[in-house]
């Protein structure tokens, strides 16, 4: 028995190492040129070519934020203008390193949740992040959404380990890169003052003193202010604010992506545009408090669910946002038996993931398709994400009721 297990483990190790190595090889050797323009993998807010353009303009004395197409944060601009060499291979290396860091952070979070130093499932957790196609394809395209995923994982890791300052620092860097990650603030604060261990099966009211959040919140505000000041210094003015944060709120760029916003606001009449922009932005915020209240005994799960909300409803999503959601599912094995329709979700995703690039190509490249084809496939994709989110919420709540017994059925009233 133990020999077979040992053999299986060895085979798994071998396969895993081979896959990871090949993935790194892919990342380092040139697939990114064909993928850099792919609209599923990078948006105007996370595109690598835009980043290079901004660095070029900055180096030549033109303010990249004076025009209207550069929307990366000044922090990324400064970081990459010093770090990033002109070669694409080194950029791929940097992105791969970020991915590995993200995987490491996910494994640490898993370990913190299990409260052990090492588990046998570590490799599976790492594999679920590194080998998830939704995660490594944007890395190949050098989209800054992969950096975002890694930063989210780092912030969550430090929050799970109880180290407030790094966690909040990463969160405020995240806020600068993408404004919609603000929804993660409350559950991370809650996680910092409670523990990451799994209490899903035994719900109880919030154990710690809620007032301890306030100094942490203050610390977050401080970090954000300092980073904003740094950004202003880097750029030499505050014009980056409407270009970066304003872009998420006013949607000036209607480039197609995997989300629901772009086509909606393409077809929207000008009269109603401000109202619906407000509705869609506030809609993201609605989920925060109810999730945190319902899962107050397990804030890590609330973070996980809010990642699902972000992946479905963000303004400029790429594949890596729902990809992160599905990868993080691997650190909650206790809810896996209670998922009601994982196969349906997986099949919807397969359907959408195959059709989205195809319809995008048909619409924009060959011209034989319509914008509606691609829009319909993004609707299916959103259905898949929604199905996964709903299933995760159900499973997280259902686990508290207990195992399935004959003659009884669990319903909601």
């Amino acid at each position, binding site marked *: 028995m133990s020999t077979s297990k040992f053999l299986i483990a060895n085979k798994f190790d071998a396969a895993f190492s081979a896959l990871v190595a090949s993935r790194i090889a892919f990342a380092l050797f040139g697939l990114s040129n064909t993928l850099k323009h792919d609209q599923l993998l990078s948006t105007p807010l996370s595109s690598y070519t835009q980043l290079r353009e901004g660095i070029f303009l900055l180096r030549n004395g033109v303010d990249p934020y004076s025009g209207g197409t550069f929307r990366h944060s000044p922090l990324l601009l400064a970081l990459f203008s010093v770090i990033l060499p002109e070669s694409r291979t080194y950029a791929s290396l940097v992105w791969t390193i970020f991915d590995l860091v993200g995987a490491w952070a996910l494994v640490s979070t898993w370990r913190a949740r299990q409260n052990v130093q090492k588990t046998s499932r570590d490799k599976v957790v790492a594999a679920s992040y590194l080998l998830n196609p939704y995660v490594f394809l944007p890395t190949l395209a050098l989209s800054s959404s992969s950096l975002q995923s890694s930063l989210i994982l780092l912030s969550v890791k430090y929050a799970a380990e109880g180290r407030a300052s*790094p966690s909040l620092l990463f969160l405020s860097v995240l806020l600068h890169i993408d404004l919609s990650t603000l929804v993660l603030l409350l559950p991370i604060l809650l996680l910092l003052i409670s523990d990451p261990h799994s209490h899903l099966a035994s719900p109880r009211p919030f154990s710690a003193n809620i007032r301890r959040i306030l100094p942490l919140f203050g610390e977050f505000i401080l970090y954000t202010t300092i980073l904003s000041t*740094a950004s202003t210094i880097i750029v030499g003015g505050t014009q980056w604010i409407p270009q970066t944060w304003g872009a998420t709120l006013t949607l000036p760029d209607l480039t197609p992506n995997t989300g629901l916003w772009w086509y909606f606001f393409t077809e929207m009449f000008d009269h109603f545009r401000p109202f619906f922009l407000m509705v869609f932005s506030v809609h993201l915020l609605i989920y925060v408090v109810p999730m945190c209240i319902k899962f107050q005994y397990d804030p890590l799960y609330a973070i996980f669910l809010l990642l699902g909300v972000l992946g479905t409803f963000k303004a400029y999503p790429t594949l890596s946002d729902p990809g992160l959601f599905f990868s993080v599912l691997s650190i909650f094995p206790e809810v896996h038996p209670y998922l009601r329709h994982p196969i349906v979700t997986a099949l919807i995703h397969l359907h959408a993931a195959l059709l989205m690039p195809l319809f995008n190509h048909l619409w924009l490249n060959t011209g034989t398709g319509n914008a509606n084809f691609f829009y319909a496939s993004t609707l299916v994709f959103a259905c898949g994400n929604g199905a996964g989110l709903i299933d995760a919420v159900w499973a997280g709540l259902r686990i508290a009721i207990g195992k399935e017994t004959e003659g009884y059925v669990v319903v909601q009233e």
Partner: protein
Amino acid sequence: MHLVAFLHVLGFLSSVWALNTSVVNDFFERNSAPGASKHTNNWAVLVCASRYWFNYRHMANALGMYRTVKRLGIPDSNIILMLADDASCNLRNKFPGSVYANPGRHLDLYGDNIEVDYRGYEVTVENFIRVLTGRVEPSVPRSKRLLSDERSNVFVYMTGHGGNEFLKFQDNEEISAFDIADAFEQMYQKKRYNEIFFMIDTCQANSMYSKFYSPNILATGSSKVGENSYSYANDNDIGVAVIDAFTHYILEYMEGINKTSQMSMQDLFNTYNPDKINSHPGVRSDLFRRPLDQALITDFFGGVAQAEVIPPIEDLGITDDAPPDLGDSLPAPEEATSLVKVSPSLFSHRPSDILSSSNVVDKKRTVQMWGGLCLVGGLAAWAFRKSASRRPNA
């Protein structure tokens, strides 16, 4: 006390107004037949709402009406011509600079002297309604405004593709019968017309005037609900149909009308022949207060106005004042100013970002970037040190 004074003022003003209107009415009564029109000027709004070469006939329709109203006396300044596309200088046109309305190409409707006020993309439903109601932006020039008043007779002609209670503009948007009815009502409220003659040549045209509710509107359309309007003839050299049947027969009739013609609108409507036109044109006259046989065609199509012949000035015994002395009131000629040749430094351009990797700019940029990065790095170091010194509670 104040109320009494107010009532006095009100009474005085209304009596003045009544006196004026009676003077004006007298003028019109004196010199014309009882059912004659009381207008003093004529305006025409001619709209071709279709784009693309195969809708050549719609542009020919509108241009045919344009030529007719111009011939009968409405000047260009009182005509608003809206053509959604350029048929005459279109690259597909074998006869550049010309638009013909019959297969034999006898009459060039474009001619040498034409002013198109709204062309191409400017022909939109919004612009049309703005023109009618007068609610235009301040920057819109005079030639694009309908400056009609209470005594204007306005001839509105529309042609294009349409259906039951709608007309398509440029294959992209629609104007509905309700929109036009509301626009006319606004015109009525703002006293922008004396009488309106509305003519429309499109499929199911009669539905377009079915919703009017303002007084003094006479309307006619080319086909009833459920019927199409057909073109008249193709021209083999131009390659498309060149005129619509309804407009063709109207224009043919108008050939016999000149500025002094006394033919009435009833005569025009009597010439409608559904067999020849292949559809049933309709007339709506319930909102029109005069009998149709007393409404002259030139009341709408021509630029004929009421004129009163008054006796020569000497007979009236009016002495004329001395003409004003202009000599001293002319402005002094402009002062000669020193003339400076332009040099680049006098330009105050918009800041155009110059790409320069000059040393000074470079240094400043580098300092800024490193400054920002150091700030971030210091923050990170402080955050990590702070957390390291505070052990997590397991």
